[in-house]
């Protein structure tokens, strides 16, 4: 068995893994990237559409163009990486076990680990669509890989279930390939991906978007022959009599993404409701010295946000190695962050008291769309310690807040805070006046 040592091991070489590796190498710490695929870049390589880099580089790039800028830096900095290598286990002592076909089993002792494994797509089984199990059912990302990487078409005529970003992008992509996209079907009353994708991928190509409908049956014993869609009520229960049949030979599913945390779980870290690991404001998981960033922590809307989060994780790992690693520094306690009204989940899950003088970056998603809202943070006594107005919130757009608690008037005394998104109080008054 081969043994290596590295200050930091990064699992995954997508947007998150590469950005954090570059941060660490810049500080002259040793770092090793482990990638299970044949090349660096992760899922971004198959995202050949544009819309990347507006935040990070202030220009519009395709996925491969965007990730190549990071790959070039990795190569310039001579950061070592292992390809075609699968991590099979990580331990609390920061031992990483991986296999590949050249070196066999590899053991790497790290001081810190950054988890950057990304996410995977929800499948048909996860949403339990009844019917036959023919060939011709794909997740949108799988179809994307076939078309953009392998050069094969998975079908001729499509129905896409779910208006997630990948689903809408694939609707356009397949139309360009001369395929027919019969409809994009969305169970919610609104599009679940970004507005720009609704306009650029569906409306510009006259692809019908059918909201408040879902696929309730799959037809075809050997290959998909069509799907039945049904209208749903507010509780997502099917409305009987609303069924429509759409003929197609392929069903694509774009029904959500789940952070991929098998390794995290097996290492003994705790996960939160969104499927990502529980982290503090340093993006450190419940295992000391193990950090998480990118889609393995929470599913992001834009790759630019992934890179930014990964850079933070990298900086925090450096700080950990330089100050806390090997030193027993007692914690001054933790403040729990709780998702309140119209907040689906919140990251971080905890804030360290000793970090209250630093900027804390919160990211969260709302449960439902709303306009003219107030985002506020309350302590256990219901004192509002922070508030901010926002014109609108929608579930497809992650909200980010940067707060330095020491600079606020009200200090946090309690052991937990609640983040909530509520209608603006003055809006209510205006309505009263109208009445």
């Amino acid at each position, binding site marked *: 068995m081969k043994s290596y040592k590295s200050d930091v091991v990064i699992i995954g070489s997508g947007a998150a893994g590469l950005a954090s590796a570059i941060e660490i190498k810049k500080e002259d710490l040793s770092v090793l990237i482990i990638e299970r695929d044949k090349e660096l870049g992760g899922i971004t390589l198959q995202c050949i559409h544009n819309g990347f880099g507006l935040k990070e580089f202030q220009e519009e790039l395709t996925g491969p163009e965007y990730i190549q800028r990071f790959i070039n830096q990795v190569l310039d900095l001579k950061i070592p990486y292992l390809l075609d290598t699968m991590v099979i286990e990580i331990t609390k002592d920061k031992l990483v076990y991986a296999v590949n*076909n050249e070196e066999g*089993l590899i053991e790497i002792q790290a001081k810190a680990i950054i988890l950057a494994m990304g996410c*995977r797509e929800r499948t*048909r*089984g996860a949403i339990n669509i009844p019917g036959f199990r023919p060939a011709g059912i794909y997740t949108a990302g799988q179809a994307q890989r076939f078309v953009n990487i392998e050069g094969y078409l998975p079908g001729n005529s499509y129905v896409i279930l779910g208006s997630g970003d990948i689903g809408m992008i694939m609707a356009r992509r397949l139309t360009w*390939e001369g395929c027919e996209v019969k409809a994009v079907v969305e169970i919610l009353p609104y599009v679940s991906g970004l507005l720009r994708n609704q306009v650029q991928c569906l409306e510009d190509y006259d692809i019908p978007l059918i909201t408040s409908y879902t696929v309730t049956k799959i037809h075809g*014993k050997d290959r998909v022959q069509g799907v039945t869609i049904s209208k749903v009520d507010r509780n997502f229960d099917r409305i009987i009599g609303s069924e429509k049949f759409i003929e197609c030979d392929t069903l694509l599913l774009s029904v959500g993404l789940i952070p991929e945390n098998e390794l995290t779980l097996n290492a003994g870290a705790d996960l939160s409701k969104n499927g990502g690991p529980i982290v503090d404001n340093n993006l450190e998981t419940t295992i000391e010295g193990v950090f998480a960033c990118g889609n393995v922590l929470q599913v992001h809307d834009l790759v630019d946000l992934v890179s930014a989060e990964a850079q933070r994780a990298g900086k925090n790992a450096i700080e950990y190695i330089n100050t806390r690693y090997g030193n027993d520094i007692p914690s001054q306690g933790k403040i729990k962050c709780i998702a309140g009204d119209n907040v689906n989940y919140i990251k971080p899950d905890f804030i360290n008291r000793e970090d209250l003088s630093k900027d804390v970056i919160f990211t969260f998603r709302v449960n439902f769309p709303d306009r003219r809202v107030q985002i506020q943070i309350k302590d256990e006594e219901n004192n509002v310690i922070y508030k901010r107005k926002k014109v609108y919130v929608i579930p497809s757009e992650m909200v980010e807040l940067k707060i330095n608690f020491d600079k606020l008037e009200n200090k946090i005394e309690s052991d937990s805070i609640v983040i909530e998104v509520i209608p603006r109080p003055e809006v209510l008054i205006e309505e009263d006046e109208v009445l």
Partner: protein
Amino acid sequence: MTTIFDVLIIGGGVTGCCIARTLSKYAINIAVLEKDADIASGTTKGNSGVVHAGYASSREYVRRNLCIRGNKLYTQANEELNFPFIRNGSFVVALEDKQIKYLEGERKRGIEDGISGLELILDKEKIRYMEPNLTDDVVGVLHAPTAGIVSPYELTFALAENAAMNGVSFFRNEKVKRISRQNYVFKVKTSSNEFKAHNIINAAGLYAAKISKMVGLDYFDIMPRKGEYILFDRNALHLNKILFPIPTKVSKGILVCPTIHGNTFVGPNAQNITDKKDIATTEAGLKEILDGGRMLVPNLPTRASIRNFAGLRAVPYNSISDKIGDFIIDNTDVYGFINVAGILSPGLTSCFAIAEKVEEFLKLLGLELKIKEDYNPIRPKPQRFKDFSKAELDEKIKEDPTWGRIICRCETIPEKEILDAIHAPVGARTVDGIKFRCRPGMGRCQGGFCRPRVIEILSRELYIPPEEVTKRGEYTSFLVGKTKDRFMEITEREELE
């Protein structure tokens, strides 16, 4: 085909393959015909995978004794064939006091008929200790320690591989169209060939009545009865025991059961249908099994479901005995034609006992059954990445680098296991064939990551283009063509114009 087989088995399910393997120890010429692209693709694929203790069937049914005998035969078979199987024991769960009497009756009759270890447990604490996920409403259980769980398709692959090792010929994609006979030789016409045999064993599952009618035997019918299942992720719930409710007239009820691979499933319901290809799940059916399962395990992890599927039971109606639902295992009036039909539950448990019976029939028919000198009953255990220690793994990868290339991340399956599945006797030819042999695509991502890679490997190993790789045979290909093909066509057309 000029060979005249001594025994031709129609149907490559668990019954047909078990008979083939049992007979493969004799110096006779055997062939198995399967209509689908792979063996184990009918009823064998979609069932509960339970090896029953044998108390459940009525004493008037031949299936009761075959089940009790079959259960016992699993121990030796498992030692020889190395398929995934454990005896984890089953509970029949009484939720009302008045059901205890029924359980006591089952226990008494079971013990009289030679089922060992049956016990009635009324101590709720003990029950909950043995199965912590069981409902609080339980008042007593019938514990059958000899019951177990098996992977039915992996058992079938093991049987077929061992049979093939011992000289049995397997022919897939051979749908029987017509059977005729001349001078005590059957001629079996299939979609693409003609096979000749002295004896035929009809193990055609749902289509057994159709095959029987081809030789003029019209005394039974097979009706499909659908059962639907939901499978849960391995991390979501862990059960120790197979949990049955008190049975109904038509089935053993909706059970909640661990699989041999550590998942949990709930199902099946029982729905009489007419279409023998209708393995579609239904909204109502999925709700029915969830509701049923919750009676036994209230905290079913519905959010962690990874797949729903359905299988069809081959329910026989025998017009001679006027019985519904008992096995039809007959040395028929057509000399040399043996029916092994209507093998519904507990057929999986009974397969080894059924094969013994067929052996006796063949002896009665005068076939000389002499044991081969080179008969090898051992089918070596497939090597699995997961079973290796870290040191062994390192060694294995050095010996063969394909051990180090992981294709399926959910189940941790390396390329080597997939290559083994393709190159084994009666090896995999389809994506489903690989999935059922070594599990890539069985996990929580259901093939999202590994499917393109599995298609690539099949295409490479079978020397076929990726478009010809199928899910499970004809009309089930994954890819319809290359990108830009359409534009090439358009440009060519424009150029012509």
